[in-house]
């Protein structure tokens, strides 16, 4: 994360949440994306899908006596079920994901390439990695929204020309949300649509490993502090 520059984690989560429209069915990946649901607008009913077979997953809850061991998120943490929610088995859960009924998936990433290729499961040269549901969800969701830091801890760009990491899926990413702004994947590669307050276009370009079209970007105005509708109870 670029220190002291751009959006806070909560502001990033808030911004992704604004993408989610009323009645959308949305899959939330483990890690940073788990911060998004509490920021969904109060006038929008978003239905969260968890790949372990929960349709209409509610927010995560703190541990304790009221925790149900049979009601866990994909990140294996206790959650609630929303009214009207239901359960399906794993094949049916991924049928939903691949079958076109996911309006969006919010995933983390190691790298995103300018053609929409996504890498988020395995480090280069590693003997193996954990795919989980990422490949199916990335391929199946109508929109793949990536929530990630703009660069690695070492300052390496994560928006890249071509993936150096093993791919999760090809040409699937719709938009990328980082602390510096919102990036659409277009025919012409990365386009900065919104820029975070206090960030300039040069910073964005300098931190990216691919061409980024920055003219035409609007200034993002997040509430500060952002107030989630529900308390964020846990951090990934």
């Amino acid at each position, binding site marked *: 994360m670029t220190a002291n520059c751009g959006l806070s984690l909560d502001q990033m989560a808030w911004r992704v949440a604004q993408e989610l429209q*009323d*009645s959308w*069915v949305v899959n939330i990946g483990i890690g940073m994306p788990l911060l998004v649901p509490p920021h969904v607008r109060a006038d929008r*009913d978003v*239905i969260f*899908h968890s790949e372990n077979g929960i*349709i*209409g997953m509610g927010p995560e809850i703190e541990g304790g006596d009221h925790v149900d061991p049979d009601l866990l998120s994909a990140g294996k943490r206790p959650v609630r*079920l929303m*009214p*009207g*929610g*239901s*359960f*399906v088995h794993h*094949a049916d859960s*991924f*049928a*939903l*994901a*691949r*079958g*076109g*009924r996911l309006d969006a998936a919010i995933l983390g990433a190691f790298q995103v390439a300018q053609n929409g290729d996504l890498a988020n499961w395995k480090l280069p040269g590693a003997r193996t990695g954990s795919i989980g549901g990422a490949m199916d969800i990335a*391929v*199946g969701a109508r929109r793949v929204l990536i929530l990630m830091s703009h660069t690695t801890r070492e300052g390496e760009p994560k928006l890249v020309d071509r993936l150096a990491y093993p791919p999760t899926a090809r040409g699937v990413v719709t938009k990328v949300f980082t602390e510096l702004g919102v990036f659409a994947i277009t025919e012409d590669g990365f386009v900065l649509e919104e820029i975070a307050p206090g960030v300039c276009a040069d910073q964005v370009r300098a931190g990216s490993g691919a061409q980024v079209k920055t003219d035409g970007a609007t200034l993002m105005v997040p509430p500060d502090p952002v107030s989630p509708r529900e308390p964020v109870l846990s951090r990934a």
Partner: protein
Amino acid sequence: MKQKRHETPLEAIDRMTDNSVVFVGGFGRAGVPERLVEAVCRRKLRGLTIVSNNAGSNVAGIASLLQEGCVGKIICSFPLAREAVAFRDLYDRNLVDLEVVPQGTLAERIRAGGAGLGGVLTPTGVGTDIAEGKPLIEIDGRAFLIERALRADFALIKAYKVDPLGNLIYRKAARNFNPIMAMAADWVIVEAAEEVGIGALDPEHIITPGVYVDAYCAVTRIDQMMEATP
């Protein structure tokens, strides 16, 4: 929240257009969305490709679509039931096209469409007329046909109970093709015998999650509308 509820079958099918591919649930007369089919007849839609187990019996359901001249093609497993009078008549006069599909293959092709798969490898039909023109693949010494996924523009579904989110349960063997067809169409329209409130259907008992349903009408009135608890 998306408004899925419609007052009448005619309103529920308002998005349907000519030349669509349409799934129609049911096996025999169990689980056939007869009121929706009736509405399609009334709208006199043309050139529909109907995917269903049968080609209609006597005058109800798909038979009425055939008689009204709505159907250009039927994809089914059992076209020549004794009662399929309307179908036989049109088929003999070359006024309707037919694709016969083994019933289990039909079910899997629809499910594959719903699951975002390109198709399945099935042993069914190997060495028969059904295999003509289809790629054959051998796995561990056994031959399989590649059967392609089947999706529809619209699904007409008969359910027992529906809630405002579109969650469905079915009744006995009226379940049949309905749950898989509901997964595999771009726009899913339901005729339910009864509408209930959110929370009235046990999450463990829901067969078709509401996310698959786009529009519904209830043949009977709402009998209870429980308040959604946050």
